[in-house]
Structure formats: structure tokens, C-alpha cells
């Protein structure tokens, strides 16, 4: 019979090695993912364009939290809050990128990024961004792509502000022109664009508010 003896120090060392191995396996840098607009098993993000963000430098073993925004005439981000897990990508396998669902916003991706390499590295994140608002934001059913603001009388003005220390906001409103054509418009960082309403009226509005996600409901309540 073989007897295996191990002193307490040896056991602790073994346990630490096992824990370290587990940690390394858990935190192995992920390979950069494919096109964020083609999200695999999920429905594709509507009218999605890729918005490559500015590159960011990291020192070795540095961890930082960052907010990335969809802007221009495609200001809406479809992240974990909308059930999309692959709507962003990055270009450097030294990094892990973890989305924080609770701090995401309708226009914001909030992530914790770690550079696991020992030397300084640069990461560029690319978001899949949409002109179509997530369910519950638009006051009508929109059709077609973005058009410039027709400048008709506005109604139903709403402000949405992202959570976190940097309150980045965007504004939505409806415009109804003299020819009875209605538009749902979004303004972010001074850029406004509109989507034509396919059908308008209180029914659409009721449907929209009925499908408001809990996060957007909370944002609306804070206004």
C-alpha cells in the first residue's frame, strides 16, 4: 500500500497552483469576434453600421472601465439589454472585454477592458450601431432609412441620459408636417436625423410604451 503524505505547506502550495491555473484558464484572452452587425443566432441588428472607435493605449496589466457611444445617424446600441451578445468586437487578443449590462444604455456600450500582456498595447473597439431605436423608444412604427430633419412642428419630446458618472444624453421627438407625414427623430451631440413613421397614432404609442424595457422605463421615470 502506498501512503501519500503531504505537509500543510505543500497542500497550500498545490491549492494555490490549482487556483492560479483556474484563473489563467478563465481569463485567457478571447479572440476578437466577427462582424458585430451579424450576430449569429440572433436576429440581425436593424439598419446596422459598424462604428470603429478611437484606438486606446493600455499599459501592461492595466484594467480600465470605458464607455463607448454610437453616434451620428446610427446612435442606437443593441447590447445585452436587448439580448445581443456579439454586437461589438475588438482587434487585439491581448485584451479581455467584458460588457456591463447594468450600465449599458440605448446609445452606450459600457465595458471593463484588461490588457493581459506585459507590454503597452493598443485596442480598437468596433460597435454595431443602428438608426432604428430599440423597442419602446420610438413613438411610431418607423419605415425606411434615416433622413435629415424636415423641420416640422415637434411634439412628444423625450430625453434619455446614460447612467454612470458621465451623463451623455440624447433626445427624441416626433415631427408632423403639413402633408400629415410624421417622423420620429433623434438628436445626439447636436446631430439630428429622422425616420418616417409608417403609421402613427395613440395605438402605436401605447404599444411602444407597453414594450418599454425595464431600463428604459427607469430612465423615463427619472426625467
Amino acid at each position, binding site marked *: 500500500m502506498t501512503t501519500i503524505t503531504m505537509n500543510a505547506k505543500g497542500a497550500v502550495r498545490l491549492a*494555490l*497552483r490549482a*487556483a*492560479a*491555473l483556474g*484563473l*489563467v484558464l478563465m481569463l485567457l484572452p478571447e479572440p476578437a469576434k466577427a462582424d458585430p452587425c451579424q450576430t449569429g443566432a440572433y436576429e440581425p441588428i436593424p439598419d446596422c453600421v459598424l462604428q470603429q*472607435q*478611437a*484606438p*486606446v*493605449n*493600455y*499599459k501592461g*496589466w*492595466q*484594467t*480600465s*472601465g*470605458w*464607455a*463607448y*457611444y454610437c*453616434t451620428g445617424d446610427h446612435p442606437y446600441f443593441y447590447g445585452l439589454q436587448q439580448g445581443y451578445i456579439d454586437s461589438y468586437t475588438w482587434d487585439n487578443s491581448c485584451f479581455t472585454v467584458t460588457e456591463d449590462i447594468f450600465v449599458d444604455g440605448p446609445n452606450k456600450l459600457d465595458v*471593463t477592458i*484588461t490588457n*493581459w500582456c*506585459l507590454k*503597452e498595447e493598443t485596442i480598437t*473597439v468596433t460597435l454595431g450601431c443602428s438608426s432604428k431605436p430599440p423597442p419602446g423608444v420610438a413613438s411610431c412604427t418607423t419605415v425606411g432609412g434615416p433622413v435629415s430633419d424636415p423641420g416640422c412642428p415637434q411634439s412628444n419630446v423625450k*430625453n434619455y*441620459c446614460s447612467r*454612470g*458618472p*458621465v*451623463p*451623455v*444624453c*440624447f*433626445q427624441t421627438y416626433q415631427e408632423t408636417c403639413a402633408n400629415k407625414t410624421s417622423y420620429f427623430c433623434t*438628436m*445626439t*451631440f*447636436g446631430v439630428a436625423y429622422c425616420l418616417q413613421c409608417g403609421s402613427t397614432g395613440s395605438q402605436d404609442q401605447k404599444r411602444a410604451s407597453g414594450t418599454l424595457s425595464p431600463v428604459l422605463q427607469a430612465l423615463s421615470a427619472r426625467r
Partner: protein
Amino acid sequence: MPTATWAQGRMPVAWATGALPGAQTRRAGRLLLAASAALGLTLIVTPPASAQRVIHDVNRTVGFAKTECTGHNAQNCIAVRSKLTTIPVDEPVLIHLSCPQSHPHVVGWDARHHEHISLRVVSVGQMKPGSSEAKPRTGDLRVAARNDAHRPGEVRIVAGCSTQPYQGHPFMHSRRSVPSKQPGMRR
């Protein structure tokens, strides 16, 4: 018979002796169970301070990464440095930076700090689109610095100040280092 109270750190005698009516006893029992579960969870989730304090190399410094003007035109953006600030053990420090009138908008920040110092943005001036009332306050940056180890550490913050307002570029809201003395971490 003396009655023990919560203030004395003991369970009320009525609970201990089962003198409460049935429903109240059950409710009290549930409360006690919930409190015990919460306490247990807290003890599991929160490592003891001594455990946190052996994982950092308190002599290692993480340098500037040039992130203060990320995404902005370098010609319009200048760096405003804080003084070197010492962060005592167990005493968070709030560091406040203001942009000059010539470059009145905070658009980012960077830092050089000891490995065991964690940084988090507390506030930046309001940045609501089209809001004129927010404009005067966009030049303020407040960052909280926390010491995660047993030795004081130092930090210097750099704010990126621009002539142009913030336009939705990537914005860093926290920064720290991977603890380099964790098991398995070798430089």
C-alpha cells in the same frame, strides 16, 4: 427577570424562550434566517483585508497611457496635470481638476499611479446636447482614488481639456492594475 435587548447585543428573551405567538415567532425566525444568510453571504463575498493586501506589488507604478485626449484632435486638446497626491491607507481621496478657460471642456483623462491605487470618475460636468446651462460646468473632473493595500501610494491625474465639447468619443470612467502578486502572475 431582566430583559436582554438588541442594544446589548443579545437576542430578546421572548424570542429565546419562544414566548412569542406562533405567527410572530415564524416571522421572527424568517427574519433571523434572512439576516444570517445575508451575513454569511457578506463574509463569503468580501475577502478579509489581509487577503486583499498580499496581492499587490506596492512598489510597481503603472504609467501614463496617453488616454486624456482619446478621439480628439490633438491640436485642440491640452493636458492639465494634478499635483502628485498621496493616497493613505483606508482613506479615499477625491482629486479635482479644472480645465482653463482657453480649453474649457474635459474630454478624457489619464493617470500614473501605484499598482495598489484604484481610480474612478465621480463626476464630469453635465454634457447634455443642446443644453446651454450645462456649458459652464464641462471643465470639471473629479476622480476618487482608493488605496487597496497596506502602504500609502501615489497618483497623478492628467485631464484632457479641449476647445471643442465632448462629442461621444470613448471615455474612461475607471482605472486600476491587475494585482501582480496574485498566485500565478509572474513578470
